[in-house]
C-alpha cells in the first residue's frame, strides 16, 4: 500500500541549504493564499459582533445580533428547513449513490457505459436547467411544491457526487479481500458490512459531506422547486438582499461555519480509523 513512498530516494540535501529568500517567498505566498481564502470569512465573523446595523462600519462589540437571531423566527425557520433538507438529502443520496457506485464498480451489464457517462450530467448541466426541468416535471406529475420537492430535487442532483467519489475509492479496491472473506465463511451481507463498507467508508463519508455542503447552500435549484413553507437559508438570505443584509445574517453564517468546521474535524477523525489496515475484527 505504501510502496511508492518507500521507493522514493531520500530527500536531497539541497533542501537544507535553501536560500532564505526562497523560504520568505514561499511563506509570503502561502500567507497571501490563506488570507485570500479566509479573510472574508474572518471579516464576516468579526462583523457579526458589530454594534452598528450597517455591515461595513465598526462601532463596537455586541452580542445583540445573536440575541436578535434567537428571536427571528424567519431565519430560525429557514435554518431548520435547510438542516432538514440537507440531512435527509445526505442520507438518501449517500445510500443510492453508493449503490450506484458498487453496481458500476463490480458488475457488467448492458448499458453500463451510458449509465456511467450519464452520471456526470447532473454535475455538468447548469443548475438553472436542472431547476427548470425539475419544476416542469413536478408540474406534469402534479406534485405540489413543498419542502419535500426540495428534498427530491437535492437528492436527484446529489446522487452523482456520491457515486463518483465512491467509485474513485472502489478503483483501488482489492477484491481478493472480499473473496477471502467469502472463502472463510462470511455470507454476502457479512462481507458487505464488515469488509466492503469499512474499506470504502472514507469515500462514502467524503461523498456524504460533499452532499451535505452542496445541499445546505444550494440556491438556484432550490429557488425553482421550493414551495409553501420551504424557504431555506440561502433563499432567506437572498430575499433579504432587497432590504439590505443585517448583521443577523453574519451571525447565522458564523454559526453555520462553526457547525461545518465541527463536522469536518469530526469527519477527519472518523476517517482515520478505517484507514488502519487491520483486516476483519
Amino acid at each position, binding site marked *: 500500500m505504501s510502496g511508492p513512498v518507500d521507493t522514493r530516494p531520500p530527500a536531497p540535501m539541497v533542501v537544507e541549504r535553501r536560500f532564505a529568500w526562497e523560504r520568505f517567498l514561499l511563506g509570503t505566498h502561502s500567507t497571501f493564499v490563506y488570507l485570500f481564502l479566509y479573510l472574508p470569512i474572518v471579516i464576516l465573523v468579526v462583523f457579526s459582533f458589530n454594534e452598528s446595523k450597517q455591515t461595513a462600519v465598526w462601532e463596537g462589540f455586541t452580542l445583540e445580533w445573536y440575541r436578535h437571531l434567537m428571536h427571528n423566527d424567519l431565519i430560525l425557520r429557514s435554518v431548520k428547513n435547510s438542516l432538514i433538507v440537507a440531512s435527509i438529502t445526505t442520507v438518501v443520496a449517500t445510500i443510492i449513490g453508493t449503490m450506484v457506485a458498487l453496481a458500476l464498480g463490480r458488475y457488467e451489464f448492458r448499458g453500463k457505459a451510458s449509465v456511467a457517462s450519464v452520471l456526470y450530467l447532473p454535475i455538468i448541466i447548469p443548475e438553472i436547467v436542472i431547476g427548470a*426541468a425539475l419544476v416542469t416535471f413536478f*408540474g406534469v*406529475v402534479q*406534485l*405540489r411544491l413543498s419542502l419535500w420537492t426540495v428534498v427530491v430535487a437535492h437528492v436527484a442532483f446529489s446522487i*452523482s457526487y456520491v457515486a463518483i467519489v465512491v467509485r474513485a475509492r472502489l478503483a483501488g479496491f482489492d477484491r481478493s479481500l472480499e473473496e477471502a472473506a467469502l472463502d472463510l465463511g462470511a455470507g454476502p451481507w457479512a462481507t458487505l458490512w464488515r469488509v466492503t463498507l469499512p474499506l470504502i467508508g472514507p469515500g462514502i463519508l467524503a461523498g456524504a459531506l460533499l452532499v451535505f455542503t452542496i445541499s445546505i447552500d444550494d440556491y438556484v435549484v432550490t429557488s425553482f422547486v421550493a414551495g409553501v*413553507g420551504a424557504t431555506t437559508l440561502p*433563499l432567506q438570505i437572498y430575499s433579504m438582499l432587497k*432590504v439590505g443584509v443585517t448583521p443577523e445574517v453574519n451571525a447565522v453564517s458564523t454559526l453555520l461555519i462553526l457547525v461545518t468546521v465541527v463536522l469536518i474535524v469530526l469527519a477527519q477523525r472518523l476517517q482515520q480509523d478505517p484507514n488502519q489496515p487491520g483486516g476483519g475484527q
Partner: protein
Amino acid sequence: MKKLLRPSVVTFAFLVPLSLALAACQKAAEAPAPQAAVAPAPAAAPAEPAAPAALEKTGKLNIFIWSAYLPKEVIDEFTAKTGIKVSFDLYDSNEALLEKLQSGVADYDIVVPSDYMVKILASQKLIQSIDHARLPNFSNLDPRFLNKKFDPNNEHSLPYFWGTTGFGYNKSKIKEPVDSWQVMFDPKHKGRILMLDDMRENFAVALKSMGKSLNDTDPADLKAASELLKKQKKLVKTYNSGDFANILASGDVDFAHGYNGQIAEVVRNSKGKLAYVVPKEGATFWMDNMAIPVKARNLEAAYEFLNFIMQPEVNAEIVNGVSYASANTPAKKFINPEILNDAAIYPGDDVIARCEFLEDIGDTTTVLDQYWTEIKAQ
C-alpha cells in the same frame, strides 16, 4: 434539446417513484380534510379532488412575499382574530415569482408582484380577477395609486407599497446643492459613484438626464443613452443592487443610486450626514401590489386577509413596522409622524408627478440588453 432530455434518464429513474409516492401520500393526507369540513356525512366515497377549496373558512393562508414586507405582529393579530394560520415564503425577484406561479403546483393564496409583473401575470392568466364587492376596505385606498396603466380598474391587483428610485448622497462631503442626475455623470466625482446593477434602472437614469421618458424606445435616444452610460462607467466605483445603502453609509461612495426604502433607513441613522434625492429630471416610480393567484386554494382566507390589511390601524401598523409608504389614506392618521414626514418615504405630489413607471418595452428590451452587455463588458 438533446442535452436537456438526457439527464431525465438517470435523474428521473430515481425521481419518478419517489415523486409519485410523495404525490400519493399528499392526496391521501388531503382527502379527509375537506370532507370533514364540508359534510359530516358518513365518509363513504373517496373525496373528489377537493373541489372549490374556496369555501374553507379557516385553514391556512399561504403568502408569497418580499422580505421585510409584513411585520410578524400583524400576522399574529390576523391569526388571533380569524383563526386562519399564515405561512409565508420569501422571494427576491419578480421573475422568481413568475416562475413559481408558472409551475402550476405552487399553493400560494396571496402574492405581491411589482407593477410591470402584475401586467405579465394577468396576461398569462396566473392571477385572478379581484371581486371588489368582497373588499369593503377597498375604499380606503388612495385614488392616486389606483387604475394605473399596468392594471386598469385594479382588476387584478391592489396597491400595497410604493416608492421611487433616486439616489442617496453624502451631504457632509458634497457641499453644493444636489438636485439633478448630472452629478452622477460629473468627472469630479470619479470613483465615488455607485449605480444599481440593473439594466432598466440605469437606462432610466440616462434617459431622464437627457430629458426623455424612461420608457423611450427611439433607437437614436437609446444609442445616446448607452453612450452616456459607457462614459459614466469610468466614474462608477461599483454596480450593486443589494448592499448599496450600506456602501453609501460606510463612506465608500458619495453617491448611491438606489431604491428609496433602504436609503431612507441609512439616512435616518446618519445623523444628518446623508440625504435622499429624487432628481428634478424625474425618476422611476414603483408599486408592489397584492394579488391572488388563479390556483389559490383558500380564496376565502385571501379576501379576509386583504380586507384585514386595508383597515387603517392595521395598515398603519404595517407601515410603522417596515417603513415603506402604503397607499391607504385613513391609515395616515396612525402612521408615525417620523415616517409620514420623511420625504424619502412619503414624497409630495410634485415628486410623484415627475416620476414614471417602468413599462414593458417589448422587443426594445433586446436592444437594451445588447447595449448593457457592451457597457458591462468594456
